[in-house]
């Protein structure tokens, strides 16, 4: 199943592309728990990892899987877990821990319908706000998305790169459609893939501070076992990594956890724009729904309605600047999504009331077909 041939075209489903991307990014540790519709990621990696000397383990529950990847990451491994809605809820506790302790790791959520057990086999995009605010406490969050198997491959690699660069858990949100759609993926030559590794300390152990305050705002955590003995905790801590109750230290820490993502927003955020230059109606769509939107832009243009698409590849940090720019150009924005307006809310905020923002929320476990979005746009026009 693994593949080392350069530029090879293969047919695979999004979930397999995710596994392939993880391997390409250097992931050598996966811990998971079975859950539809993400299980193929675990299944593929259970085959691939041991062949590469990597480790795969099916843990006893979702919390354990999240804990295990954090433990593995602290030994210097690139580690990942994959889940879906209910499991994502369970993982939040330790996702928050990884955010607080600044441990790089990747969490893939193949979104299905909720709330609760909801629709195990059917697609949704109902976890996009949970990805931002699911764990308690304030901190910056990076969450990526993908609309095809190819993008899932690429975004999985990027998720690892961002995690290593910013020392933070990175979430990849795809949905059941993307996870289970089999299509062509071009696997590039390994030498053409950009791979980022976390920084190593350049001072000796005596002078090492794991959470040293620097202008970069990103700590350098030495892998366990390399002679740098320090403490990692989910409690508020100071530069040493030990718990603190000092108000100044705590204020610094919590502000930095948000700032270290905010200050790099322009590096992190990526958008795809389609025919936005002269658009009168702007569509904001992400994940599998962006494919519907692409079709709709063309269909509407044929009808003479000038529609353009803003498709974020990164949901968090939210691409507020791009939305604001679009809001200054178009007459109205339409946000189709497989929830009842979770990102439409962000779009409204970011557009600062310049134009009306229309929601198109579908929550019956069915994708939004092009015709439904075309009708919505006609109605808006």
């Amino acid at each position, binding site marked *: 199943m693994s593949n080392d041939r350069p530029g090879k075209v293969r*047919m695979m489903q999004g979930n397999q592309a995710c596994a392939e991307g993880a391997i390409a990014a250097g992931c050598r540790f996966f811990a998971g728990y079975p859950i539809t519709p993400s299980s193929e990621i675990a299944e593929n990696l259970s085959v691939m990892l041991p062949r590469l000397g990597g480790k795969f383990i099916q843990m006893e529950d979702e919390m354990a899987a999240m804990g295990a990847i954090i433990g593995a990451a602290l030994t210097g491994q690139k580690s990942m877990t994959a889940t879906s809605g209910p499991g994502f809820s369970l993982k939040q506790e330790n996702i928050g821990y990884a955010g607080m302790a600044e441990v790089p790791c990747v969490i893939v959520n193949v979104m299905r319908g909720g709330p609760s057990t909801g629709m195990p086999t059917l697609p949704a995009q109902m976890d996009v706000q949970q990805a931002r605010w699911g764990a308690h406490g304030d901190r910056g969050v990076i969450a990526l998305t993908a609309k095809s198997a190819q993008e899932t491959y690429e975004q999985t690699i990027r998720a690892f790169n961002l995690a290593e660069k910013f020392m933070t858990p990175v979430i990849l949100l795809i949905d059941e*459609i993307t996870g289970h759609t089999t*299509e062509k993926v071009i696997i590039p030559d390994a030498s053409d893939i950009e791979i980022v590794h976390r920084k190593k300390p350049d001072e000796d152990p005596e002078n090492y501070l794991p959470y040293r305050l620097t202008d970069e705002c990103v700590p350098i955590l030495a892998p366990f076992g390399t002679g740098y003995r320090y403490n990692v905790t989910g409690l508020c801590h100071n530069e040493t990594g030990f718990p603190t109750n000092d108000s100044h230290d705590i204020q610094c820490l919590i502000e930095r956890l948000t700032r270290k993502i905010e200050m790099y927003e322009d590096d992190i955020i990526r958008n795809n724009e389609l025919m936005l230059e002269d658009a009168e109606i702007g569509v904001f769509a992400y994940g599998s729904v962006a*494919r*519907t939107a692409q079709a709709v832009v063309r269909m509407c243009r044929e009808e003479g309605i000038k529609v353009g698409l803003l498709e974020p590849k990164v949901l968090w940090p939210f691409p507020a600047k791009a939305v604001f720019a679009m809001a200054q150009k178009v007459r109205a924005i339409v946000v189709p999504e497989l929830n009842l307006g979770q990102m439409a809310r962000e779009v409204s905020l970011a557009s600062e009331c310049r134009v009306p923002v229309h929601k198109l929320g579908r929550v019956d476990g069915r*994708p939004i077909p092009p015709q439904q979005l075309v009708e919505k746009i006609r109605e808006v026009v």
Partner: protein
Amino acid sequence: MDRYDVRLSGSGGQGLILAGKILAEAAAIYDGRNAVQTQSYGPEARGGASKAEVVIKDGEIDYPKAMDLDLLLSLTQESCTKYSGDLKEDGIMIVDSEIVKYPPEGSFKLYAAPITSIAANKIGKIVVTNIVALGILSKIAGVVTEESMRKAILARVPKGTEEINMKAFDEGWKTGEELLAE
């Protein structure tokens, strides 16, 4: 070529998702076009109405699910009733003649053959029903080359079952020829 939308429907466990993957790979890998395969199934591993869809196109495929169907295969009455609404007026419907007793009325072309029985009696293994169906539909649809279908099947079926699957495909292809001649 514009989109060619195919839906393979039946009940869970009939191997239709595998059939969809084979059809998509035949088109995309071996015929060098684009193809996207998606699926929809219930929470259960067996039974229920299940479908696999394949969209074949020369250019980029945006919306991945089948929309206006060029071809519908139905191996159960339930799936035929549930999933036939999107079939184009000049589309193709292929059904298992012994199981789908009441195909919907319409101007589409209907081809009926005892697909499951062919697998069970002529090949001797009911599990190859999906491959028999692929033989029939690829002959009738003519959208994927025969050679590519054979390659795609051989690449996907378990080792040691190549011969019986080829036999199933041959039998399906032959049935397709007969249906076209009628």
